[in-house]
C-alpha cells in the first residue's frame, strides 16, 4: 500500500520536526568569546523623538560602548497584550541572553516568559514585579518635571500651564504634581490644566488636547505622551512648550523652553556589561538626575539667565540629595494635607500617588 507508506513517512518527518522544536529552548546558551545577544521590545515605532526613540538611543549608546562584545536586535510596535509574550519568548528562544522589555504592559508577559527561560536575563521598564531572572528599572521623571515647572512658572504670563497626559497612573500623576509644585515654588498663582488622551501615542488627539489647553489660556504646554504633537501645537500658536522624553527643539525651535529627557544608555551599558561578565543580578533601579537617567535639554535662548541659574541650582540640590520635589507640607487640591511639613515622601507611597496637588485643576479620573 504505497499510500499508507507515504502517510507514515510524513508522520515520521512531522514527529521529527516536533522533537527538534521542543528540544530548542534548552539550547539557548552562547559559548565563550561569542558576542552576547541582547533583545529589545518597543511599544511604538522608533520615529524621531519620544519614549521608544530614547530607548533606542540607549541601545545604540550601549552598542557603541561595548562594541564587539554585544549584538542587539529590536522589535518595534509590539502591542501590550497577548502578542507581547510571543515576541519576548522568541527573543529568548533565539538565544538572546538579555532582554529589555520597555513598556509597563509587558510586565506579566515578561514574568511568564522568564519562568520558562530561567537562564535568560530580563529587564523590565516601569513595572513592579521582579523575579530571579527579572530586574526592573525606571527613571525619576518627576525630578526633571519639577525643574521644568520652575522654568514654566517663571516664563508664563497667563499663570496657566497645559498638560497633555496619557493615562492616570502614578508615574504620570507624580509628573503632573511635580511640575505644578515646581511652577508654584516660583509663582504661587500658577495653575496647571490637564487633558487626558487615554493613549501613549496618538498625535491627532495629542494635538487636539494641546490646542484646547492653549485656547483655555495656557501659554506653556507640556505633555506626557509619546509624540511631538504638543510641542508643534505650541510652536504653531506661538506659546511656550516643555518637551518630554526627547529634546524636541527641532519641532518647536521657538516654543520649546527646555525638555525633560530620558537617558537610558548608561544603564543599558552597565546591565549588558555585567551580563557579559556573568555577574548580572536582578536589580530594582530607579535613577534620576543624580544617576544621569534624567536630564534637562539645553535652554531656549529666550529663557533669561537668572531663570536658568535658578533651575540649575535646584538641579544641583536634587543631585546632591539636598532637595526632594515632594517634601512637605504638600496639600492635595482639595486642601487635605498629604505630606506633613518637613517630611519627605518615601518611594513606596510615591509609586501609589493618586491625587493632584494644590495648583492642579480638576479631579483625577480614577480617584474616588
Amino acid at each position, binding site marked *: 500500500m504505497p499510500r499508507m507508506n507515504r502517510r507514515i513517512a510524513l508522520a515520521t518527518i512531522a514527529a521529527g520536526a516536533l522533537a527538534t*522544536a521542543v528540544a530548542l529552548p534548552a539550547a539557548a546558551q552562547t559559548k565563550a568569546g561569542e558576542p552576547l545577544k541582547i533583545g529589545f521590545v518597543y511599544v511604538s515605532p522608533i520615529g524621531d523623538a519620544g519614549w521608544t526613540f530614547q530607548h533606542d538611543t540607549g541601545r545604540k549608546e550601549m552598542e557603541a560602548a561595548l562594541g564587539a562584545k554585544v549584538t542587539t536586535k529590536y522589535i518595534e510596535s509590539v502591542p501590550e497584550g*497577548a502578542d507581547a509574550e510571543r515576541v519576548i*519568548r*522568541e527573543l529568548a*528562544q533565539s538565544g538572546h541572553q538579555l532582554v529589555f522589555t520597555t513598556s509597563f504592559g509587558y510586565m506579566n508577559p515578561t514574568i511568564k516568559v522568564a519562568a520558562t527561560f530561567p537562564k535568560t536575563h530580563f529587564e523590565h521598564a516601569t513595572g*513592579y514585579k521582579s523575579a530571579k531572572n527579572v530586574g526592573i528599572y525606571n527613571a525619576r521623571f518627576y525630578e526633571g518635571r519639577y525643574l521644568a515647572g520652575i522654568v514654566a512658572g517663571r516664563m508664563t504670563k497667563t499663570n496657566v500651564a497645559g498638560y497633555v497626559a496619557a493615562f*492616570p497612573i502614578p508615574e504620570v500623576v507624580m509628573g503632573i504634581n511635580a511640575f505644578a509644585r515646581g511652577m508654584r515654588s516660583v509663582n504661587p498663582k500658577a495653575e496647571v490644566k490637564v487633558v487626558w488622551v487615554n493613549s501613549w501615542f496618538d498625535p491627532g488627539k495629542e494635538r487636539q488636547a494641546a490646542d484646547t489647553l492653549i485656547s483655555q489660556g495656557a501659554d506653556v504646554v507640556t505633555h506626557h505622551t509619546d509624540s511631538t504633537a504638543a510641542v508643534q501645537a505650541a510652536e504653531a500658536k506661538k506659546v511656550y512648550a516643555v518637551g518630554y522624553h526627547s529634546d524636541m527643539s527641532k519641532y518647536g525651535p521657538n516654543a520649546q523652553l527646555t525638555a525633560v529627557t530620558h537617558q537610558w544608555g548608561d544603564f543599558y551599558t552597565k546591565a549588558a556589561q555585567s551580563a557579559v561578565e556573568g555577574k548580572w543580578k536582578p536589580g530594582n533601579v530607579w535613577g534620576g538626575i543624580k544617576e544621569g537617567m534624567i536630564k534637562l535639554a539645553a535652554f531656549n535662548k529666550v529663557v533669561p539667565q537668572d531663570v536658568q541659574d535658578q533651575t540649575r541650582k535646584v538641579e544641583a540640590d536634587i543631585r546632591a540629595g539636598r532637595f526632594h520635589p515632594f517634601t512637605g507640607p504638600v496639600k492635595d487640591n482639595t486642601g487635605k494635607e498629604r505630606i506633613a511639613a518637613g517630611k519627605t515622601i518615601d518611594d513606596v507611597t510615591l509609586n501609589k500617588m493618586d491625587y493632584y496637588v494644590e495648583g492642579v485643576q480638576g479631579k483625577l479620573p480614577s480617584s474616588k
Partner: protein
Amino acid sequence: MIRLEARPEPSRTFKWASPLIAVTATVAIGFALFPAMGKNPFDAFHAFFVKPLDSLYGVGELLLKASPLMMIATGLAAGYRANVWNIGAEGQLTLGAIAGGGVALALHGVDSPLVLPLMMAAGVAGGVAWAAIPAWLRTRFNANEILTSLMLVYVATLTLSLLVHDAWRDPEGFNFPQSKLFSESAILPNMLEATRLHWGFLLALAVVAAGWVFMQMSYVGYQMRVAGLAPAAAHYAGISAPRTVWLGMLIGGGCAGLAGVGEIAGPIGQLQPSVSPGYGFAAIIVAFVGRLHPVGIVFASLLMSLLYLGGESAQLNLALPSAVTGLFQGTLLFFLLAADVFIHYRLRGAKRVTRAAVAASDPARKMSGV
C-alpha cells in the same frame, strides 16, 4: 481607455486565478521593495512565510491568533451576506471581554468547572447586547449601522478603560490600570504542550462549522442570503427585513463577544486597557478575503495570522522596520481583495462607448454591490 465590464455570471476561471494573480503581484512588489531596503527578497519571503512556522510553538501561535479572527469573521460574514454592515466587531469583542471578565472577577477564587461556561455565556451576551444597539437604531430610526457600530467601538474601549482604571483595578497593582490575574478556573486549558494554544481554537472551529450549517443548510440562513442578494425579491417573498438586520448584527456580536472571552481567558489572563490588537477590524478583511464562506474564512484567518507573525519575524530576523512589514502585509491583502474583481468583471479595451452600453452596464454594477 480600459474599463470594467460586468460579467453575465461569475467567472469560474478567475475564482481560482485571482489568488494566483494576487500572489504574483505581491511577490513582484516584494522583489522591488526588499532590495530597495537592502534585503535579499528570498530571505524576506522566508522570514515572512516560513520562519514563523518552523517550530511547534510557531504553529501553536498561528492557530492561537487565527482563532479569534475566524470566530469573528464567521459571525460578520453571516451579516455581510445579508447586506448588514457590522463594522463594530472590535467593540462587541471588548464588551464580551468586559462581561466575561466581570464574571471571572466576581467568581475569583471559585474553583468550579462552571466558571468558564458562565464567562462564555456572559461574553456572548455582552457582544449580542452591544450589537443590538446599532440593530435597533437601524430598524427603528433607519440609522446607518456602519456608523453606529463603528462609533460604539470607541465607547466600548473607553468603558473597559474606565473599569480597569477604577472599579476593577487590582488593589495590589499600585494603581496600574489592570485587573487581578484570573484564577486558574477562569483560564482556558492548554491544548498542546509547549505552546500557548488553548481549547478556544476548537471552539473557533465549532463556531465556523455552526456558521456553515446555519448559512448553507438552514431556512433562516437561506432567507438571509436572499435578502442580501436581492432585497426586493426577499421583500416580495415575505422575508422580514428588520429580522434580517437583527439576526445579522446579533450573530456578529455574539461571535465577537465569544472571541473576546477567548482572549482574556486565553493568552491574556486578566483585563487590561487593551484586550485586542484590532482583531475586530482585521476580521472584516478576513471575511472578505475568505469570500464570506466559512471554509474560505478558515484559510483567510490562517493567512492573516501568518502575516502578523511574519511581520514580527521579518523585524527580528532581517531588522526590517515595522512600517515596511506593515506595508508588505497591506500590499498582499490589497491584491487579494482587488484581484477578486475579475471574478465578476472583465477588462475591456473600449474603443467607443455608446450611451446604451453605459446604461446597460451601470445597473448591473449597482446590483452586485461593488
